[in-house]
C-alpha cells in the first residue's frame, strides 16, 4: 500500500510540474485524473463501509475457558460492485479464533458471501467481547484503508475450566487421607505428634522425646484433624481487565481443581470465600461439587474488599481450623495471609499458599517453594499461564 501511495504522490508531483510549464488537455487532464484517484478511492471505501455486512455467532450456551466452541462468521456483499480487500480483526486479548489469523484478506465479488466455520477459544473466565473486533477495508488500487469497529460485538460469558489433577505436587494426598501421623506412638487414647512452636510445654511427652531425640507433644483423641480446606481470596488487585482476568481465572481454576482432586480421593473439602462474611462450600459429592463449581463460575472479585476484615473473618471462623490442611489461593500473599497461616499452624493445620500472579513468575515447570514460612506453611508461586497440572 505504501508503494502505491508513493507512486501516486510521484505522479501527482509530476502532474503539478507539468501544469506549471505546459497547458492543454494532457497536462491538466493528467493532473485532474491523478488528483481525482484518491477522492474516488475514498468514496469507494465509504460505499463499502456503508454496504458491507457481517454476521457472526458461536453455538454454545455456555463457554468454558480453554475449550473450543464452534464459531461462525459470514462476510456478505449484496451490491453490484466488488469489495476489493476486506480483513477481519478479532478480539485477541482473552480469546482466539482457531485456525484463522488476522492476516487473511478477502475479496467479495458482487452478490457473494464468505462463510467461515471455525472455533473460538476463550482463555479466561469472565465476561468480555469475543469474535470480530473490527474490519479493515482497502480500495481496489490499494491506496487507502479504513478500519471500523464492529458495532455489534459478541459478548461471551465464560466459566472456568475444570481441570482434573492427576497428582498434587505440593502436598501428599495419601497422607492427607490418613488419620494418624506416621510418627505417632499409639496409645489407647493419646497419640503424639512433633512439637510446634506455640504448643503448651506441659503437653510435652518427655518419654517419647527422649527416645527419639525430638520434642513430641501429646495429641489427645479428639484433636485429630480431618479434611481439606480451600480459602479463595476474592480480592481484585488491579483494575485493568488484561491483568485481573488471568489472575482470577487461575485462582478459580486452582480452587476448582483442588476441590475436584480431593473429592475424587474421598477427602472432604470445604471451600471458603469472603463476601460480607465467610461463605463455606462443602464438596464431598458430585452434586455438591457441581454447586460449588456454579458458585465459582459466577464469583465476583471485589476490588474494594477489606483485607483486614477478610483475614479477621477467616480467623474467626472455627471451621477453617478443623481442616487437616488448608490451601490458600490468593492473588496477594501479604502479611495478612502469613498471619492467617500462622494462626492455622498453631491449630495444627498445615497451610499451602498458592500465590497467583505473574510478577517474577520464575520457573513454571517445576514447583519450588518460593518461601518456606515454616515447616507447616509453604508458599508457591503460580503463574497465570501454563498447565495447572504441573503447577499445584
Amino acid at each position: 500500500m505504501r508503494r502505491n501511495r508513493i507512486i501516486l504522490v510521484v505522479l501527482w508531483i509530476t502532474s503539478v510540474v507539468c501544469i506549471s510549464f505546459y497547458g492543454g488537455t494532457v497536462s491538466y487532464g493528467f493532473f485532474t485524473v491523478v488528483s481525482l484517484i484518491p477522492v474516488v478511492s475514498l468514496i469507494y471505501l465509504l460505499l463499502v463501509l456503508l454496504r458491507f455486512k457481517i454476521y457472526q455467532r458461536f453455538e454454545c450456551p455456555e463457554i468454558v475457558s480453554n475449550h473450543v466452541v464452534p464459531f461462525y462468521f459470514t462476510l456478505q456483499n449484496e451490491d453490484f460492485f466488488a469489495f476489493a480487500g476486506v480483513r477481519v480483526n478479532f478480539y485477541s486479548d482473552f480469546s482466539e479464533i482457531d485456525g484463522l489469523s488476522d492476516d487473511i484478506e478477502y475479496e467479495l465479488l458482487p452478490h457473494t458471501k464468505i462463510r467461515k466455520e471455525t472455533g473460538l477459544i476463550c482463555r479466561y473466565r469472565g465476561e468480555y467481547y469475543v469474535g470480530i473486533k473490527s474490519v479493515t477495508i482497502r480500495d481496489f488500487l490499494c491506496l487507502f484503508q479504513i478500519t471500523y469497529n464492529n458495532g455489534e460485538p459478541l459478548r461471551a460469558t465464560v466459566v472456568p475450566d475444570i481441570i482434573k489433577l492427576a497428582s498434587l505436587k505440593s502436598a501428599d494426598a495419601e497422607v492427607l487421607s490418613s488419620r494418624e501421623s506416621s510418627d505417632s506412638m499409639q496409645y489407647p487414647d493419646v497419640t503424639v505428634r512433633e512439637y510446634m512452636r506455640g504448643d503448651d510445654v506441659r503437653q510435652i511427652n518427655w518419654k517419647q522425646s527422649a527416645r527419639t531425640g525430638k520434642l513430641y507433644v501429646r495429641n489427645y483423641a479428639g484433636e485429630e484433624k480431618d479434611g481439606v480446606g480451600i480459602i479463595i481470596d476474592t480480592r481484585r488487585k488491579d483494575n485493568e481487565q488484561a491483568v485481573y482476568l488471568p489472575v482470577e481465572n487461575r485462582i478459580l481454576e486452582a480452587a476448582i481443581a483442588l476441590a475436584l482432586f480431593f473429592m475424587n480421593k474421598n477427602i472432604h473439602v470445604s471451600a471458603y470465600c469472603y463476601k460480607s462474611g465467610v461463605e463455606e462450600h462443602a464438596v464431598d459429592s458430585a452434586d455438591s461439587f457441581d454447586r460449588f463449581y456454579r458458585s465459582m463460575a459466577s464469583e465476583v472479585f471485589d476490588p474494594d474488599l477489606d483485607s483486614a476484615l477478610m483475614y479477621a473473618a477467616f480467623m474467626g471462623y472455627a471451621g477453617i481450623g478443623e481442616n487437616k490442611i488448608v490451601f490458600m489461593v490468593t492473588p496477594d500473599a501479604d502479611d495478612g495471609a502469613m498471619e492467617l497461616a500462622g494462626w492455622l499452624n498453631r491449630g495444627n493445620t498445615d497451610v499451602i499458599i498458592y500465590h497467583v500472579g505473574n510478577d517474577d513468575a520464575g520457573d513454571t515447570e517445576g514447583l519450588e517453594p518460593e518461601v518456606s514460612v515454616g515447616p507447616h506453611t509453604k508458599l508457591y508461586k503460580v503463574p497465570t499461564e501454563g498447565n495447572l497440572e504441573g503447577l499445584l
Partner: protein
Amino acid sequence: MTAFLFDYLYIAPLALTAISYYNGLTGMEAPAALIYAVTTAVTLVLTILAHLRLKERLMLIGIMLASIAGIYLALVRAHELIHAEDYHWLMPVMLIAFFSYIAGSLMARFSYVRIGVSLLAFVMLGLTLFGIIAYPGLSVFFAIFLIIVSAADEVHIRWRRDGFTDEKTHMVCAAPFIASIVIIAAFIRYPERPYDWKLFIDIYEGALAAADRISFGFGAGEDGIVGFSEDGRLLSGLENISRDVLSVNTDSDIEAPLYLAGIVSDSFDGHGWKQIDDSLISERNMDAIEGTIAMRAYSEDYRDLYREEKIRIDYMDVKSKYLFAPSKLTSVNITSGKENFTERGGTLVFKRYNPYHFSVNERFIRLNTESADFYDFMRDGAALDKLRWSSTISYDSYLKYKEHVKGTYSEEIKLSDELSARLEAIYDGAGSEYEKLKRLEASFQKMKYSLNPPEIPDYVSDSSGYLDYFLLDSGEGYCSYYATAFALLAREEGLPARYVQGYRVDIDKKGTYTVTSDMAHAWPEVYFEGKGWVAFEPTPGFYRGTAWGRGDEGDAVMPSVPSVDPVFLEADTGEIEETDEVYEKADTNISIILLPVVLMLFFIMAFFILNRLIQKRSFKGLSDQEKLKAIARDNLAILGFLGYRLADGETLDEYRQRIANGIGADALGFITDYEEALYSDLPKSAIKPDTALVCNERLMRLLKERKRFKYMLRLLAGYNL
C-alpha cells in the same frame, strides 16, 4: 458476459486511442464521431464473436451480412451512387480497429503485454505534452483510462487475498469507478496556458502582507505605515483591514479630500516604486513657496487659486517613521517633544519612531483645482524668473531645487505604437500640458477598479512594459496601479512626476476625522515648472476635485474637459472558441433502415429453422444414451429457465430433492436415468431416453404456463446438443 466485458475494457480504449492518434497524424476526411463509431462497432463485433459459440457466431455474421446487404440494396433502390473514394478512410479505420482488437485481447490475457502497452501510451502522452505529436483532446482520456485499468489489474494480480478473487469480475466491477474518474476529468475545460498559481501566490503574499501589518502595528520592524506595501511593490491582491491610525482635526469647511503624503517615490522598475533620492532638499516647503509665488504673481485674486489651511494630526496607537502631511507644507509643529524629523527625498521621516500619542500641527497650501481660474493659471502661468521671485529663500536655491526635481522625477519612456496612438486620441486638441493630464485623468476614471488585479507578469521589467501591460492588457487595478500609470505617462510627456503614498481623507466640514488604515492611498503628483506640484486622482471612483466659491461671481466653473471615451482596454471575457467538429447528419431514408431490418429478421428465422432441421437430423443419429444425455441437458436448461438452476457443487440427487416441491416429482424422473448414464457401468443399450422425453414434454408445458417468452425461445433453440 464478464469475460466479454473484461476483454472490452482493454480493446475499446486501446482502439479509440490508436484511431485518435492516427487521425491526428493523417487527418482523415470524416467526422470524428463517425470514425469513433465505426471503430467501436468493429471492435464490439469482434469481441462479441470471440465470446460466442460457433452457432451463435455464424448467426451474428449472418445478421451483419444481411444488414449490409440490405443497406446496399436500399441505396441502390434510392438511386444513391456510392462513391468509393468518399469512404477510403473506412479501410484504415477497420484495420486499426482489428489490430487494436488483437492487441487489446493480448493485453487482457498477458501481464507483460499490458504493462508494455500502458508504458507506450504513457510515452505517447508525453510526446503529446511536448508538442511532438498532436491528436484530439478526448482521446487523452482513453489512454489514461487504459493506463489506470492496467494498473488496477496489476494491483489485483499481486494482491494476495482469499475469497472470490476472479480477475475478470474484479476488473469489471472496478471499471465504473475508474471510468467515473476519467469521465469527470474529460468534462472539464482546460486552459491552454500553464497554471500561474495565482491563488497560492496571492495567499502567500496576503499572508506576508498580514504578517507585515501585524509587525507594523507592534513596531516589530522598520516599517511604520499601517496599510501600505512598504517596499512599494504593486501587489496582486489587497485585503482591506480597517484599523485606526490617525485622527485629523481641520477647521476647513471645504468639501474636498485631504491627501496626507507619507512616502514619496521616484524610481519605478516595472513592478514597484523605490525612493532612490535621499537628498535633504526641503521639497515640500519649496513646492509651497514656488506655487504661492507663482499664483500671487499671476493674479491679484490669488485667493481663488489657493488658500492656506491648518490641521492637527493625532497619532494613535501606531508606530511609524513617517510624518504624514499634505504636500505643499508651510509649517510643521510637533506639540509634544522636540522636532526629531527630517525630509529625505520629499519624504518626512522621523529620526526614530514617533512617540505614542503625539500630535502635530501643520499648515499647508490647498489648491482650488476645480476653478476656471486655476485652469487658466495652469495654462497661461509663466515660469518664475528672478524678478518675480519674492522669498527669503534665494533664487539660486530655487534653481537648484528645480534642477533637482527634473533630475530626480523625470524619465525617458518609449511608448509602443498602439499606446502612443491611443494617447494621441486623448490629447488631441488639448491646449496645455495640464489639460492633457486632466483628460488622461478623466479617461482613467472610466477604467476598472479592482483590489485583485492580475499579478504583473515577469516579462514586465520597465516603465514601458508596465504601461503596455496595464493599459492594453490588464486594464484593472487599485490606486497604486493607476497612480503609477499616470505618473509614467506624465513623465513620458516630459513632465517630472512622482508616486506618493499616504492617506486620503474625505473632508466634508470642519471637525475631527479618524483616519483608518483602509484609507491608505496612492496618487501621482506632477511638477509644472513655475507652478509647482499638482496632485491628480486617476483612480476610478476616487475623483473628487477641490473647489471653493469665487466670491462675487458665484461658484467656480471648471472649463469642461471633453468627455473621453474609454480608449484603454476594457475587460476581455476571453471566451474560448468552440472547436467541436460539426457532425453532419445523414439523411434518413426509411428504406435504408427498413430493408436491412427485414433482411436481418428473415435471416434469423431462416437460421433457426435451419438449426432445428440440423438438430433433428443429428438427434436421429445419436445412440439412446446420447439421446438421453441431450434431452437431460435440455431438461436441465428448461429447469434453469424456470428458476431452478443446478447449484455449484450440488449433486443431481440433491438437486432433485431440492426442487421436487416446486416442480413435481413426475417431471424429474429423468434425473435418475441421467445419473446412471453419466456414472454407472450399465451397458449403453440399457438406458432409454423415454422417461427423459416424457419429462421434457412436462417441463415444456410448465415453461409455457409460467414463462411464455422463454418457452418461445426454447422452441427456437431446440435441444442443447
